[in-house]
């Protein structure tokens, strides 16, 4: 009878950490990790020590103190007695505003230009090539400054609108004023307004919610929901009887009529800008700085998006188009049912990084005096309080959060459109 014995256990020797392949990679990783932590520790320690030597221990108490400065473009109410935190929030909203506007415009422009660049029309295709090469090969900062300079130098000042025979006049039956201080457009007003709900009392994140807007959105959503219900019903009838009832006028009416009634009840009217004193007043003021930044960022990023869209479409094999037309699909349906769904999976990932780029590039706002997060928290607040480290760290954290949020949303969308493989 033989018994199976374990092979003699090797005793562990220290040298095995290096010479034994089972342990070697682990050893190297641990050593690298320790080295990395030492480096980080040294950096943090050095910074803390230097700040302590200067007598500037990191503290965030300044955020609660009154900011003392005014901000021209504010989406929420703000005055110079509000805290630095509030000023930072106003800046953050301005950043988000220009980023959202920029992303939308850049996408629309980029898709159009990308498709046109593939046009069979020689002139159109070449013009689009020139556009793309011009915009993506010049730094975006120059485009921003250039756009601003054009707006300031070529458009009339408000005082040119004054007098008996003014040098400049308003456009679209006196409803839009284009000046070198910005564009004034009519604003929606309600004479029987439902008022606002004030949230968060007097804290830094307080804001008002317009009940008019909520009512408007609620009615609109309900209209769309009923409209969708009518469509489902029509589909069902079509499946059962083969006849599709005519529903287009019902579907439009359920959206338009209730919204129209609501607007009439609320006394909806437009407030037009008027020249009063030094400036136009009334209406919505789109400042030069916003327009310059928005335009320049959109045009610049659109050039990149155009290339991405072109690449996405060209990545689809020509055989797919031919197969689709062999099946009798019209060119429009070929594009929407065959080409685009496949192109999107190529387009979305690089599109995400372009959205991120646009958002981060919006921090160049300071070049035209647009009061974004870099201008308020990391600009004036930094300068007035001398808290460089704290404000810049906060700013970095905010940009990181914005970027990660955009990534998360876009990745979710990417997962939905990507090709399902088996």
């Amino acid at each position, binding site marked *: 009878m033989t018994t199976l014995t374990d092979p003699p256990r090797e005793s562990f020797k220290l040298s095995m950490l290096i010479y034994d392949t089972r342990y070697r990679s682990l050893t190297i990783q641990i050593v690298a990790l320790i080295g990395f932590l030492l480096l980080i520790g*040294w950096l943090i320690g050095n910074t803390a020590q230097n700040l302590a030597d200067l007598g500037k221990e990191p503290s965030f108490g300044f955020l609660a103190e009154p900011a003392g400065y005014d901000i021209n473009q504010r989406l929420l109410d703000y005055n110079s007695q509000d805290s630095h935190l509030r000023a930072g929030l106003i800046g953050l909203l301005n950043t988000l505003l220009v980023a959202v506007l920029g992303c939308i415009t850049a996408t629309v422009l980029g898709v159009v230009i990308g498709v046109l660049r593939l046009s069979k029309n020689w002139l159109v295709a070449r013009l689009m090539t020139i556009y793309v090469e011009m915009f993506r090969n010049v730094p975006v900062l120059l485009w921003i400054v250039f756009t601003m300079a054009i707006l300031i130098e070529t458009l009339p000042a408000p005082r040119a609108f004054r007098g008996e025979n003014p040098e400049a006049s308003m456009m679209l039956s006196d409803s839009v004023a284009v000046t070198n201080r910005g564009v004034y457009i009519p604003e929606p007003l309600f004479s029987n307004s439902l008022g606002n709900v004030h949230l968060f009392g007097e804290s830094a994140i307080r804001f008002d919610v317009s009940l008019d807007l909520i009512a408007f959105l609620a009615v609109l959503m309900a209209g769309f929901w009923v409209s969708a219900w009518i469509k489902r019903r029509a589909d069902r009838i079509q499946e059962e009887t083969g006849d599709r009832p005519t529903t287009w006028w019902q579907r439009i009416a359920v959206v338009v009529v209730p919204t129209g009634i609501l607007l009439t009840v609320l006394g909806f009217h437009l407030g037009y800008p008027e020249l009063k004193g030094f400036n136009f007043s009334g209406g919505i003021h789109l400042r030069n700085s916003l327009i310059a930044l928005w335009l320049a960022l959109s045009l610049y990023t659109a050039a990149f998006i155009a290339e991405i869209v072109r690449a996405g479409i060209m990545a689809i094999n020509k055989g797919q188009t031919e197969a689709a037309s062999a099946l009798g699909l019209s060119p429009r349906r070929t594009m929407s049912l065959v080409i685009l769904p496949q192109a999107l999976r190529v387009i979305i990932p690089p599109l995400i990084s372009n959205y991120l780029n646009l958002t981060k590039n919006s921090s160049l706002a300071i070049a035209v005096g647009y009061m974004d997060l870099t201008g308020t928290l990391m600009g004036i607040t930094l300068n*007035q309080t001398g808290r460089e480290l704290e404000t810049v760290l906060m700013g970095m954290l905010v940009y990181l959060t914005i970027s990660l949020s955009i990534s998360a949303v876009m990745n979710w969308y990417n997962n939905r459109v990507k090709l399902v493989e088996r």
Partner: protein
Amino acid sequence: MKKSVFLGALTLASMGAGVAAAATLDDVKARGKLNCGVTTGLVGFAAPDANGVWEGFDVAVCRAVAAAVLGDPMAVEFVPTTGKTRFTALASGEIDMLARNTTWTFSRDVDLKFDFVGVNYYDGQGFMVPKELGVSSAKELDGATVCIQTGTTTELNLADFFRANNISYEPVPIETNAEAQQQYLAGACDVYTTDASGLAATRATFEDPSAHVLLPEIISKEPLGPLVRHGDNEWGDIVRWTLNALISAEELGVTSANIGELSAGTNNPEVNRLLGTEGNLGEMLGLDAEWAKRAIMAGGNYGEVFEKNIGEATPIGLARGLNAQWTDGGLLYSPPFR
């Protein structure tokens, strides 16, 4: 385990750092050049001339310090700074001193950890408007668009002034004086506000200066002066007493013209102490005996510097006003050289 490694690293690192605030004087001498922070360009105060040589009222302070410390008024590296970058540049040691029409305030002195060594120009914030607007007082500016350099005390004064008078305005933040000038001349803002001296200097560069007026209101006290980092008192003393030497020289009648003659010895003991023929003031500062003589010779005494760069004979045309010697009814009053 990871945590203790981390803490260990921290302790090690903090032992390694520590010796940071060295003597600026030694650094400057070793470098052979003085790094002086100035504006990005404000004619009369600090701007390069046609040959690229910096000149102006603030530049003269830098040159006097360089002359006192290094013996050569031209041994200055001028670092142009904006309202926003100036304090970081000084705090980080990129520049040795800042002479950039900077207002001496409590929080800058105490909280930002700087030392203002004195005042070289007593100023106040004013407003400039085109004459055709027909505005005669700042209180008529309700609803106006105001161009303002961001990162300055003027930004805060402006907010206070309009709030106190309960009138509204639209601020347009601007990074440099040149941009403000562009926007103001194009009519993108109705008003340009900054220190009255800066307004006068800016107006002097316009094609038609007479088409623009400075409003009578001066809404703040803006004592402008050179500053250094807090904590290096020896260096602070050198900059402070160089400025005082220029001011005292004017009071005592020492000019760049007669300084050669006076440094042979006079019967005024204070002039002798200033010029180093009597006593050992230079030695106390860690410099040689002729430090103040060189500083004065660099560009003349305070009055000469004023007249040459921003005085009434120049296009900027500022009167001495508050910046006259105390003996002439002004505020300039140097402590005695004793």
